């Protein structure tokens, strides 16, 4: 039962992430910088990392990127979002595991946002073979800082809410004892 609960929870995160990705594409970005976006779907990766760990976070990120690319129809953007997503998830999971006392979820989200930007610019400049694209990195970083702040705060509140709900539902705990009765 525990295993199924985990599966269902993770697939819920994936579906929420895909929907957020889709909605996010409809919001126009007020900055003339290519690659700047809100990164709302990052909330779901953050929650997966916070509740389970690196493996589950990567699972959510990869599946969410594929579904998001299929939904939006621009498959070329998959390469950017996938590499950025994987790298930022690895960095966030590492930071959450080892620097949990130093950074809150907000700080981890900031780290993830900046890593995502960096990976995206690197992939773009490898594809276009012009390293002049790094000119955009500082702008992307500043924008990513504020969107990362927002997603981090959102993830923080969602996590707090879920934790209290989970305690009430006994999500992680003595469910099996009830089952066996």
């Amino acid at each position, binding site marked *: 039962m525990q295993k199924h609960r985990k599966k269902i929870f993770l697939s819920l995160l994936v579906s929420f992430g895909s929907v957020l990705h889709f909605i996010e594409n409809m919001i126009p970005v007020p900055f003339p910088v*290519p690659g700047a976006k809100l990164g709302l779907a990052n909330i779901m990766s953050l929650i997966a990392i916070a509740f389970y760990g690196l493996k589950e976070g990567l699972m959510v990120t990869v599946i969410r990127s594929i579904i998001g690319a299929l939904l939006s129809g621009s498959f070329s*953007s998959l390469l950017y979002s996938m590499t950025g997503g994987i790298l930022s998830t690895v960095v966030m999971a590492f930071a959450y595991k080892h620097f949990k006392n130093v950074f*809150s979820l907000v700080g981890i989200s900031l780290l993830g946002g900046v890593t995502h930007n960096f990976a995206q610019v690197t992939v773009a400049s490898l594809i276009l073979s*012009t390293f002049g*694209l*790094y000119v955009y990195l*500082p702008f992307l970083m500043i924008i990513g*800082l504020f969107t990362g702040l927002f997603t981090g705060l959102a993830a923080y509140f969602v996590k707090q809410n879920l934790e209290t709900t989970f305690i009430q539902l006994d999500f992680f705990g003595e469910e099996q004892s009830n089952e066996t009765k």
Partner: protein
Amino acid sequence: MITKGDKVLFFSIILLSFLIFAGFQVYGFAEGKTYVLIEVDGKLFQKISLGQTSPDLKITVPVKTGENVVEIEKDRVRMLFAQCPDEDCVRQGWISRPGQMIVCLPNKMVIKIQSDKSIKQDVDEIVY
């Protein structure tokens, strides 16, 4: 909920991005052609492309008090001779990076280096 580490991270990211930005401002764009623009009295006198293949030139520029001489060597430029009394422009020496300039104030003459921003045009064609 926002820890001290978060704040430090926040400001260090801002600092880092400003450093990268400043680095690009100082060193210019690594790619793209560079041009030297010679302006007299606010009007363009001559535009010459710079590069390893360009010939060495000495250009005589007519100015208010007489003639200034600009020397171009491959990808760098200097004021070889000026008629102004202080000769600050001559002492400034060679310039080669986009964004740099030599100004001869008494004669209202400016030597500028610019790059064509071909990188930016490339970027606009990407569909994200």
